């Protein structure tokens, strides 16, 4: 059966309208739920940087996670100079949790904004910093929790988009992330970050306070992680110099290493 052109055009128009309407309707209906899910995911990742919290996350319901987050985390956003920013370029209030690290990463370092998540549980204080960089195949990102001294790592959590399963993708495993706990990011009062060295199962003699055991077969992913940590820890030094609790004590030590 051969239909007329008019029939085909009218049919196509109606089909487009119906399908388009359906999709936008669904998007409207599901939008709030999706936003919640995304929000929960971000908060889970932020809390997950603290090892003690991460072990508890698995048994918590979404509501409990959000409540816990609200209880222990306070956040603010800093610029490259370390000054706090409260509004974005459109003048809307800037919420640290909503800052898109990936979008910021595409801008030059000086123009980015840097969210900081302060963790306070009793007397325990930690700073959780988002990081973003390039792995072997695609983007990698994560959160690093620094202890109150701003020199030792409390915990890290990493994610990736397309690292090789079983090799580079292992950066998401607890086993690898635990290697970072307690490591120091400064050496001789200089920021050196923590380096993941080549090869796996290195003898303790090769590892020290600023080095962690590597990933067999994933040296390039490890290099990506190293660069990401060094970059972002560097970006946050300006903020720490101005705003951390022991800003004055650190100012002298860090002022030389702000790049």
């Amino acid at each position, binding site marked *: *059966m*051969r239909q007329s052109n008019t029939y*085909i055009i009218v049919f*196509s128009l109606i089909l487009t309208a119906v399908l388009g309407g359906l*999709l936008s309707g*669904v998007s409207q209906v599901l939008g709030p739920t999706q936003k919640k*899910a995304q929000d929960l995911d971000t908060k889970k990742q932020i809390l997950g940087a603290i090892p003690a919290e991460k072990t508890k996350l698995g048994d918590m319901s979404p509501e409990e996670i959000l409540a816990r987050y609200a209880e222990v985390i306070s956040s603010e956003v800093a610029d490259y100079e370390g000054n706090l920013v409260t509004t974005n370029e459109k003048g809307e209030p800037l919420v640290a949790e909503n800052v898109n690290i990936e979008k910021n990463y595409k801008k030059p370092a000086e123009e980015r904004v840097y969210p900081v998540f302060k963790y306070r549980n009793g007397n325990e204080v930690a700073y959780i910093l988002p990081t973003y960089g390039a792995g072997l195949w695609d983007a990698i990102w994560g959160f690093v929790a620094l202890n109150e001294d701003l020199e030792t790592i409390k915990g890290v959590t990493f994610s990736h988009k397309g690292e090789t399963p079983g090799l580079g993708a292992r950066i998401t495993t607890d086993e690898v992330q635990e290697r970072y706990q307690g490591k120091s990011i400064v050496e001789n009062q200089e920021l050196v970050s923590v380096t993941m060295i080549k090869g796996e199962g290195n003898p303790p003699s090769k590892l020290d306070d600023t080095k962690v055991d590597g990933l067999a077969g994933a040296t390039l992913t490890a290099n990506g992680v190293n660069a990401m940590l060094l970059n972002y820890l560097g970006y946050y030094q300006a903020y720490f110099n101005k705003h951390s609790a022991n800003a004055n004590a650190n100012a002298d030590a860090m002022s030389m290493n702000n790049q």
Partner: protein
Amino acid sequence: MSTETLEKPIVKKEAIFSKRRKKFVIDPLSDDNPITIQVLGICSALAVTTQMKPTMVMAISVTMVLILSNLIISLMRNIIPSRVRIIVQLAVVATLVTLVNEVLKAYAFDMYKELSVFIGLIITNCIVMGRLEAFALGNKPYDSMLDGLGSGLGYSWIILTVAFFRELFGSGKVFGYPVFEAIGMDNLATNGLMVSPVGAFMVLGFIIWVQRTKTGYVEH
């Protein structure tokens, strides 16, 4: 592939699961399997099958999309202008896939993060278009749904089997549960080849080999 469109005219008041209809569901499981016999949907069989859990979500999603798109296209089969039928099918499939993606994003965000790229690719999964073109355009809605279900199940069991072996030998786990550790073989080395697409090709090859030995199917 095009033989189904030549089905005999349907007798009135046929049983819901008559012999003919059972064939729609059972045939694609083995004798007319979309992956191993028709060699459709290979890309996703390679891409998502490193672990059981995402594979399961993928299998369910593809089956849902197959059933629903078959149903919708079959309902519209008499009004779809034949000259633009492919684009109409594509629009319907794309809409359904987007719906699946949106639902996953809202209710299974972890899965969405892991699978969203592959979910989008269901649109180009040849099984879906293949069934629409070969079956739904020429058959009644209920039969088309059964056909979609059959093809979906046929696709599902193959990719789940592939995923089972890949996860077992590639990561030593099944559904994330460390099997080898549980039976005291925790120093067993995992096979890196299995987590790469090459592993999927090999497992798929074995399945096709075993299946064809049993059924005696030969390519013509």
